[in-house]
């Protein structure tokens, strides 16, 4: 074999080796390349919507939970310039209250869903606009939001038929988002307190705190017989405030 031919073989081997190395490098860093459906610049719809909606969740939760589970309280008392729903109420003295809001957990879920509906629609719209500007083709239908509360979490289901197309197509029927929250446990405690208020006229809040170290319950008694309950989780910072008026005593001897 001539000397020139040997050089050529070596060069060829070097080129092949470099190609192999290049492929290996590409293979190793492939997951980090921004492809449709991954990365912050071209985030998946789940990631985008989670971020978009997730910014609003704390604000919505704060409004709902600080007002007794409603964005627009109907039967309420104003305390600290805030309308707080009566979850259990009686206008009379010496009588236990009537539950005004059974199915509290369901009620809060509905409120969250209702408040998130326009936000989710807006987020989907902005996602579509942004990605279409990047060359994606987005088709989607109406967005329907369904919020569910579970242990330690809030689950948001977006019933959203959507197709994202760029190079390849991906179709969604619904998108599930999950956020950490201890509100379910707190609402369960509120339900228990209301059980006692409606049955016996009062509740023993210190016992809850004795068995659930993270829970703090404050009860403020007003002069008209109303009580403002504030249940909070000192670890997760979740809080729920509501009012009750049960087994109230008239001032003094009972004449008004």
């Amino acid at each position, binding site marked *: 074999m001539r000397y020139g031919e040997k050089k050529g073989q070596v060069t060829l081997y070097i080129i092949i080796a470099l190609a192999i190395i290049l492929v290996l490098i590409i293979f190793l860093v492939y997951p980090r390349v921004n492809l449709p459906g991954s990365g912050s610049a071209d985030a998946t719809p789940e990631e985008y919507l989670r971020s978009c909606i997730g910014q609003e969740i704390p604000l919505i939760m704060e409004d709902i939970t600080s007002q007794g589970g409603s964005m627009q309280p109907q039967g309420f008392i104003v305390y600290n310039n805030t309308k707080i729903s009566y979850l259990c109420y009686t206008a009379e003295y010496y*009588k236990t209250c009537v539950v005004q809001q059974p199915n509290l957990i369901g009620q809060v879920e509905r409120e969250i869903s209702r408040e998130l509906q326009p936000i989710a629609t807006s987020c989907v719209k902005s996602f579509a606009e942004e990605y279409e500007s990047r060359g994606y083709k987005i088709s989607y239908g109406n967005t329907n939001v369904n919020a569910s509360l579970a242990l330690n979490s809030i689950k948001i289901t977006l019933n959203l038929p959507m197709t994202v197309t760029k190079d390849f197509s991906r179709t969604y029927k619904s998108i599930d988002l999950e956020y950490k929250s201890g509100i379910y446990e707190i609402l369960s405690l509120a339900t*228990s307190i209301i059980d006692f208020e409606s049955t016996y006229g009062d509740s023993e809040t210190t016992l*809850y705190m004795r068995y659930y170290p993270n829970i703090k319950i404050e009860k403020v008694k007003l002069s008209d017989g109303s009580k403002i309950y504030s249940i909070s989780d000192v670890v997760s910072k979740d809080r729920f405030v509501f009012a009750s008026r049960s087994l109230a*005593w008239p001032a003094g001897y009972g004449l008004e």
Partner: protein
Amino acid sequence: MKEKINYKKTAVFEIVLLISVSFAFAYIINHTTGNPGEKIIVQKNVRSVSLLNFIGKLLFSEKGIVSAAGEVATCVNSLSGKSCQEYPIESCNQECGGDCVPSTRENVAACKPGTCYDPLEGTCQAGSPQSTCVAHGGTWSGEKYENIPQCREGCCIINSQAKFVTERQCVRSAELLGVKKEFRPDVQTEIACLALGSVQEEGACVFEQEFERTCKFTTRSQCGTMHGDFYSQRICSSPSLNTTCKPQVTTGCFPGKDEVYWFDSCGNRENIFALPKAASWNNGGVLLKNNSCSLGSGTNLLANVKTCGNCNYIAGSVCGRADERNPVSLGEYVCKDLSCIDEQGKKRKHGESWCSYQGAIGEDTAKNRARDTPGSRHFREVCINGEIRTEPCADYRNEICVEAQTPIQGGKFSSAACRINKWQQCFDYNSIVNNPENKGIGKSAMQAKSNQRDLKCEENTDCFVKEVKVGKDFKFDYCVPKYSPGFSLSQRGEGAEIICRQANQKCTVVYVKGLGGWDCKANCECEKKIFAEQMNDLCMSLGDCGAEVNYIGDLTENYKVKKSPKLNSAYLENIKRYANEKLFKGEYADAGDISEFFATLGIPEGLGSASTPGDPAAQFGMAGTVAGMMGVALVWAAGTATGAGILGSLSLAHVGAELLGPTTNGAALTVNPGLSAAGGALAGAAIGFALTSLLLQFTGVGRGLPPAITYSLLAAGTAGGAIAGFGAMGGSAFGAAAGTLLTIGIIIVVVVIIVIVIFKALGIGEVKKVKVTFECKPWQPPRGGADCAKCGSDGKTCSRYSCESLGQTCQLINEETGTPECIDISPNDAAAPSIRFMKELLANYSVEETEFGVRIKQPGSDGCIPESYEPLILGVALDEPGQCRISNSTGVAFEEMESDFGSSLFKRNQTMPLLTPSLSDFGLESFNPNARAEYVLHIKCQDKSGNTNIKDYGIGFCIKQGPDTTPPIVVEREPSLTTVAYNLTMLNGGVYTNEPADCRWDSIDRDYSLMSHEMSCENDFEDRQLFGWFCSGEFPVTENTSKYYVRCQDQPWLNVSSQNTTIHRNANSQSYTYNLQRTINPLIIESLVPNNETLNFGTIPASIEVVVKTSGGVDGSARCTYKWGNSSYIDFAEGLWTSTNSQIFQTIYDGIYSLPVRCEDLAGNTAEKTARFKVNLDSESPKVTRVYENGGSLTLITDEPSVCTASTAVPSRGANGCDYEFANATEMSGSELVHSIGFSRAITHYIKCKDKFGRNPGSACTIIVKGGVAQEL
């Protein structure tokens, strides 16, 4: 002879003179003294009865209590956004967005309370109205919460977290999280569930990651999802596992755990921190809490805190960062002490609660009077997480704080609760004595009544017997509250006036003129200081009345005493002590026997006394939640042998150990069962019972109040004010004493007569009565508002009551925020109230302005007002709230004026009815049509800041005599109901007339003078009651219908034989018919359910409703009561005074029950019956008693009728095959005790059985048959 005849004549004359003068003198004596003693007693009794009746009617006629009596309507959706609210009938439509339903809530289908179940979430809510439930997507049931299978809670374990929820909640949570769940229906208490969560099987989950053998400490199921190898009860740093994790690198806390743990180099939790390290290494094995180091030693629960991290939150320690107060030997985390130091410097354990007061409380046993000061409140303090929380009890002392000390090793553990103050019951007991039915009963019978009243009073821990003992003749007892209630100082205080006026008393001191002058013969002590002191002691025990200090020590004297010394400084200084809480530190209201509270709601006495808790095994109630008594009781139980037995019966013996660890002082956890606020609040209905009882007592049967009752009538004191007391004269008639006095020394008749005549001329033997009076007024705060800012300065909540008690012009603002403030609303007020006479109240008179005030004139002739029994309503309007007083003289200082004009409360309008004085009050005794008398009332007023009018405001008028030409009118009868009891033979009744009168009755309608039965009448002006002057009589009830005729004659003070023919008494020409009708049939209990039956339930505890139906009697309706255990008879909660009474008992356990029931109708007919029934509670899912193969079928026999299903699906790795839905498996044939299904030995059958109550084994199996062999579960 002539001389002899003269002597004879003289002797006869002298004999005649002797005899006639004797008679004459006897007449004079009798006329002077008139045997007043007996008369006063009778008058006092009846007056007090009538007063109490009147008080009760007035007090309980207002809407707040009337609503409790049922005069309400229901609004389904109110304008303010509330649903299913009851409002008084007259105001309901205004409150309601639509029409109100004229019925109580329970009788409106849409508003009937029940249990709302959310089928999606699985949650249940008690007390929900049907319409609200359905509107929110729920399913409504009229059953009680505990009787609904879907609402039965069990222990749901998800990701090693345990939650006490319903099965549906468990399923839903697992679905949403996409994880497996385990549901344990056999775990029936929240505490046990919490403990279960801490004993989940954990171990090392080893897996490969990035070519390394790493590990995570987790549960088996979690490890399954990670596809790792699970090593149960091993920690990740165990050498045998050969992982990269290094042991015991750091210490720290772990979410959901109380303890301080070691952590390995991989961040995995290891065993509980202990030093030396080897103590918690355990060769790489999991060391259970119970086997870990002991944090406490002896009575010191934190003896080993520096070297042991086995904290226990319930016992008072939890993992936290170390600091100066909580040092540790290694690392940065330690078991932090959660105890507190109270304001007395005493150490309080975590969870301990105690009472705190603003001064003295309860009864001063030495002085026999109540001590709670106006404005004061009871508080409950709790040590939680190292912080002291202060919880106020209900204001106005409607709740009191009670405390119990439970002995534990090394000391005592305090438990406190706010509970209802049963002050109303104390007043109610007095009606045993002061009952109209007691009229005419003998002295011994009355004494028995008094003893009965005293017994009930003393038995009630909230009451005591106040003994008023001024002297041997003036003494009486009254049941009063220990913790006197407060009243609103800014709202209408007429109720307070009524309550306080109970202590108004009049004591007649009797003097007889003797040789040496006037000698006091009866009630002499009433003119000494003891009278005012004793009466004020009673006054302040009724409530915020009389001379009292507020809770910061400011005294005001709100009483009036005439003809007797006022309270002296020594007495007042003694009262002031009550505001000094330092003097009473350590005192508390004892919880006493609380079982009576719970009896009213059907909870048996198993709770025992406050200091000796009952067997908590019987207290698996209150839905078993931590907030209920179970939450309290089980903590106690866990630390005792009894509790260990209970836990053992639940196969949770290890739970106790896990819950508490190897603490040496389990009893330190003791909290007294039933003393929680919920326990206290359980008696919520009891107060309603007491009020209903009082209402019925005072309003009488079937009598409603006229709608237009004016408080001014009360203010005039026309109803008087006296409690039953055997008043001035006691049992001895003074007349007899006088007679005795005068008869002593009679030796020679003639001499005595001469002496008597001389005495008479000198006035010897004359009797003089001095009326000493005490008037008890509502307590008023000090003038002005100098002390407003002190509200809350003691660290306690500043409420409206406490603020207003500090000064007349103190007012609470910003109450709707978290920072209320008590301010002086009139700091610069220097002007006295301006007075305007309210002419509008005297429409039939003309009122002229004069320079000194006004002059009232009767239209026509000379303008003078004739004497009359109808009062003049006088009123003044002020430009600011004020008090007013009157005097007959001008220029008298405000404080010295004799009487209040109107109310002693601060009001803008003060009114007062004035009974026009008679001319005899002016010294004109004979009827003289031309007689005239001028009269001027001088008024001054004072505002809340203490500014008083300098110049008097005068109301003048002249009076003339008016002839009385009209006979009395009978305006009302007593009892108002004509129907009397079935077997009654004699009735004590009477009539009310519109003027003082004598009355008679007869069975024949004839002239007054011919009527054969005289009635006993109270004819003094001050004897006037609500309906007028009362005359009583005894009417025989001989037939089913008895008809009597009553006629009356006025002016009983007039002498019928008067020579003045222009004066005559007017008698009725027509009779008032007094009908009595015996009830035809006796009252009977038609049905009592349940009775003679066995009740089966599937819940523990169960709820039952006892229903009693009555018939006969007046109209079949009755008030029914029941007796639970040793309690006294308690009203049924529902249906009082209807023919169907019912009561729900919410905490019924296994056993045989005997419930005595007693019913009484309006006429006094009674019926009694006892309900006997047995209760069986089935709390377990069915068990298999026998299983066998029979011709290719697997047959099993259960211990109760049930439905069974079987699954043969092969379980996935880590699952046990029993984790399937009951409805999704193959149902076995048979629905009673015998069940069968096709069988193959090669297949494993996982079988579950469910009883008729829905009880099933949850995530476990009833039986597993594998290879033809029944497996042990």
